């Protein structure tokens, strides 16, 4: 954190005298009253639209009947969780989901940062602006179209990638016919599509770094590489860590639509994840079994929470930044 400004003012009391010295907590509350005013409306929003509806989560423990309503539905305890955990492929599905998520997180983490750092050193101008705009656009291409493009590129017969491979003397590879390639295809096409959008936050963070630091470094004779390592990287580390923690909290929610579109009978062992499993079970039982899917959602959330706590703890140890 760029805290090199030296102002010689001593840390001292604010200029507002407080007669009430009884309750230190009360004092603190009153002192930051304006901050509470700021927080008031967002807090209200949170309560009304996020916390109040949480009573609905209890249907994970009930047999929800639309007619009986949430309160009137029968209590069944852990029935839905047991059903899920006992399902034939549970372990494999859980494993696939975790592996895919970890892979996605790990691969997706460095590239937006690298891109932002890279762009930072381009000369200001049309080229730089053009690149930023182009890389940001693919994010908006719909999943269906994107998967279509990926399939076309990887087609063993007509796809660009295989044409290049063959031109270089290699054999054509049937990418989608190989179960072990599924996760890589998924992850790298994700990185490819979203890197431009995801790097925006880092560009903004870099823009917030005091240029005086760079000036000083140049004067000291530091090369660009060193400046990047010593100034830029630490400058965005806090936000990178925070994003990492936040992403961990969403880990098991790996994109279901995209997985579904890339699945085929051959890669199914590697590609079935929790959300696609729930979707398919729900398809043939078209009464929306809210209870079951809520229970599974709860299951995922708890795992997400545990992962988030672990990563946050680790982040706290590094003293850089953490959620709390």
């Amino acid at each position, binding site marked *: 954190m760029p805290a090199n400004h030296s102002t010689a003012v001593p840390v001292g009391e604010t200029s507002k005298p407080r007669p009430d010295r009884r309750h230190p907590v009360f004092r603190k509350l009153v002192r930051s009253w304006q901050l509470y005013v700021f927080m008031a409306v967002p807090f209200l929003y949170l309560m009304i639209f996020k916390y109040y509806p949480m009573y609905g989560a209890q249907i994970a423990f009930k047999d929800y009947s639309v007619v009986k309503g949430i309160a009137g539905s029968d209590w069944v305890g852990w029935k839905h969780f047991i059903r899920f955990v006992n399902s034939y492929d549970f372990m494999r599905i859980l494993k696939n989901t975790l592996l895919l998520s970890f892979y996605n997180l790990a691969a997706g983490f460095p590239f937006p940062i690298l891109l932002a750092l890279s762009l930072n050193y381009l000369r200001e101008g049309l080229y730089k602006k053009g690149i930023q705009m182009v890389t940001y656009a693919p994010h908006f291409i719909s999943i269906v179209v994107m998967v279509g493009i990926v399939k076309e590129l990887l087609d063993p017969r007509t796809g660009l990638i295989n044409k290049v491979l063959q031109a270089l003397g290699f054999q054509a590879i049937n990418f989608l016919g190989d179960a072990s390639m599924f996760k890589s295809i998924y992850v790298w096409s994700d990185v490819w599509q979203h890197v431009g959008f995801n790097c925006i936050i880092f560009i903004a963070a870099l823009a917030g770094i005091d240029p005086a630091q760079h000036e000083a470094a140049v004067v000291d004779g530091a090369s660009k590489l060193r400046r990047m390592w010593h100034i830029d990287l630490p400058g965005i580390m806090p936000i990178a860590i925070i994003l990492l923690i936040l992403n961990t909290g969403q880990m098991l929610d790996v994109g279901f639509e995209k997985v579904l579109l890339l699945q085929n009978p051959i890669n199914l062992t590697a590609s079935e994840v929790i959300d696609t499993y729930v979707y398919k079970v729900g398809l*043939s039982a078209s009464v929306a079994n809210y209870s079951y899917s809520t229970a599974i959602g709860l299951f995922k959330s708890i795992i997400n929470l545990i992962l988030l706590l672990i990563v946050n703890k680790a982040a706290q140890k590094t003293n850089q930044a953490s959620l709390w």
Partner: protein
Amino acid sequence: MKKRSVGALMLCLAMSAGLLAACSNAGNNEKEAGSSQGDGVQTVSAAGEFPITEEKTTIRVMTSANAAVEDFRTNEFTAYLEELTNVHIEWEIVPASSVAEKLNLTLAGGDLPDVIMSMNVSPEQQVLYGQQGIFLPLNDYIEQYGVNTKKMFAESPLVESAITTTDGNIYALPAPNECYHCSMRQKMWIYQPWLDELGLDMPKTTEEFREVLMAFKTQDPNGNGQADEIPFSGAPMANASSTLTTSVENFLMNSFTYAPYTRVYINEDGKVDVPYNKDGWKEGLKYLHGLYADGLMDPQALTQDANQLVQLGENPGTPILGAASGPNMSAVSQLNGSSGRWLEYVAVPPLAGPDGVQLTQYDPYQVAGGQFVITSAASNPEAAFRLADALYDREMTLRLNFGEPGVDWEYAEDGVLGLNGEQAVYKDKSGFGVTQNKHWSQTGPNYRPNSLRLGEAADPDNPLGTILYNETKEKYEPYRVDASMVMPPLFFTTEQTEEIADLQKTIYDYVSEMNARFITGNANIDGEWDNYLATLANMNLDRYLQVYQEAYDANMDAAS
């Protein structure tokens, strides 16, 4: 339960006969009778009579949006209907993408409309909400007012039992749309010009088919000097509810054992059965593996999607696809496409396997249930029912689907031939537009049996309908299985649904996966067959069959 209702039926009939007599005498004096139904609720006129109510009644209808219909509110057919029946429809249009959610939300906490139309209320939902009283049972209304509904039941006998739930009630009306060529979906399409080029006859057995594929591969039928021909390809079925029968085993397996794409059927003992544990299936897999091993089957047939298959067939310039399965030639080419290849792919009649098995799948149940539900919030359920019943009338159905008689369609003159080569019933004169406002474009209850659809006047400029009819009739109908072997649409209880859903998902995916592995040779058929059967047993195949059997028995009892 059924015995009692026969007596009730007699009583009802007698009563309605009496009512009819009374009403036709009473003429316009029906307002007094109306008070017995509650304030302001109109009495409904007798069965078959219009207008339905003396004064305008309003019915709130929730329906799915239809991109082909500009605005139901101002639609010409709506206006015609309202004038005829004196029933005003208050529309609530739901975006097509949110039909399922909207349905559930409405049932959960929104206010119910009078009628839910064209929102695909599933059999499970019908049972669930019907039994809870949210959806009204329609049996009595059908009895009392269902003039056209009864005619429909008489002409298409399978409909009534298909829409009756296990407790004997009908909670939702269907929109039967019999598509003759769709009733036999597992076809194979082969590129005729290549057969001609190489002087080959249409194969009749699996061995001949294999030889033809070999000829395609080695004799360069597209004449470009390169061995770029792909003799046989396909695309796996997207999921258990898909009807796009492009998977490599969909057609060919039926030469070894009966293999409907739904993977479930009724065997000779009248029991629920599945095809994928039979010896015939094993032999079929060996045959397919043979095709794969000899390079006659495109490896991508096991991984690509339907779009890629069409791309294969529509390869720009030189044709490269020899044969593939599908419900019609749109699976391998673009209908009315500029390449014209869709006319050159012709159907292959079911092949005779080494043991003489020669079958094709049959689906006589094209009922499209769940299209019209009357809810407990309806202020005048009789009027709502009569509205639906009216639409089953042939002329109303034609108006609903095509528009104005004389302008958008007309009854066929004598001598004009229909798709089935016999005297046609009607002629379609409407063009295909993006959006129109003259008709409802298939929304709502309407009745299009084979007698109507095949009675569409054949159009020489548009031969598709005739072609499909002929291909199906001549090549497939002789081999189709008996209707008694076909699993009818069933109504499951919630517990049954849950259990079956879990088991089905696991088993279905496993079978698909093993198919792919056996065919590619990744798993050895002889060596691993027992393992495969054992795994299926582990996945509780027996329990699956058992639950299915219970549901089947319950449905059959209710229907008899």
